[in-house]
């Protein structure tokens, strides 16, 4: 019985790690592409500085939100807040 319980807890931990890690991976790629394109666009059209910056931050915030949510739920799973 104890073995089963520890197996379940271990799988929980692996799942939480995957959640956090894959979320961070996707957001990292997304933010990299986003900021690279932002610099490209800025180098091409320095006049558009202001509108590009606000749109960049909008996109960065949208990208940033998803891994944050998965991070929280990962932490909650690690702490065993959800009853299994």
């Amino acid at each position: 019985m104890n073995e089963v319980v520890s197996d379940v807890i271990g799988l929980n931990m692996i799942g939480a790690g995957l959640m956090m890690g894959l979320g961070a991976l996707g957001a990292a790629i997304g933010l990299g592409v986003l900021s690279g394109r932002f610099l490209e666009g800025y180098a091409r059209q320095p006049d558009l500085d202001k509108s590009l910056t606000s749109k960049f931050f909008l996109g960065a915030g949208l990208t940033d939100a998803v891994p944050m949510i998965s991070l929280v739920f990962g932490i909650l799973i690690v702490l065993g807040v959800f009853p299994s």
Partner: protein
Amino acid sequence: MANTETQTENHSTEGSAQQYIGHHLNFFQVDVRDGSVVHAQKHDGSKCYLTDILTFNKCEAVHTVKKEESHLVNPYTVNVDSLLVSFVLGLVFFLIFARVSKKFTTNGKPGRLQTFIEMVVLFVDGNVKSIYTRRSRLVAPVAITSFVWILLMNTMDLIPVDWVPALAGFIGVPYFRVLPTADVNITMSMALSVFVLIFWFTFTRKGLKGFIKEMTLHPFNHPVFIPFNFVLESISLLSKPLSLGLRLFGNMFAGEMIFIMIALFNTAYTFALQPFLSVPWALFHILIICLQAFIFMMLTVVYLAAASADEEEKS
């Protein structure tokens, strides 16, 4: 029942990590049916009511939840802490802006506060103008209200996590969460009001006919595709408030959660680590606080602009 009581005693002496987090994630909920505070009791173990707290009778938190209660959501509870904090912050926002706009001067030197408010107003106004190109007396006020209000509510996250619950416990309130935007009820209700506004804008600009046309003929303009179009458009319509509310909630909840995790370094050896973890996170979190308020405002304006766009403009 005797079993749960001994468990409660154990936990209050031990103070485990889960207990601490659970206490920090518990809202100050009042059951509207009889006015009792959820998960709380008085010193003698009797039920705690809201009137007890208002008359300064101390209530304490009950950490162990009975098994049969724990998986059911009680629909009659009201989160008093979120409502109180958000109402007070909305009042602060409103009074400051009303005062400045009443004393507004263009001759002579403007005061610091007026300059600051003008900066905020011009920032929001510029962003709204760049997205919502037609005239409306509603969009810019909605935008500035959501921006400043959410910014103020998010800023509550920078108050150290233990101050407010400790202060509340001192005057006998068992739980108090000071961050309203980490309450999914608050964020979803704001998102739902944006949803209502989307409908309002669609109906006033396009009428019922235009709305039905948009829902059934939009991606593929052919009668055969009507059911498919309808499913597609309904999903995109319903995902707007859902993503709007859950994004804000998720970000603020994550930030709060990480502050709580940092506060868990409470042994003698790891205690000194806390400033080195919480200060950088707070600095990074300032960015998120402003960004999420900004994103909520921008997406509101984008959705309203899309709702009131004409057919020719859209394609």
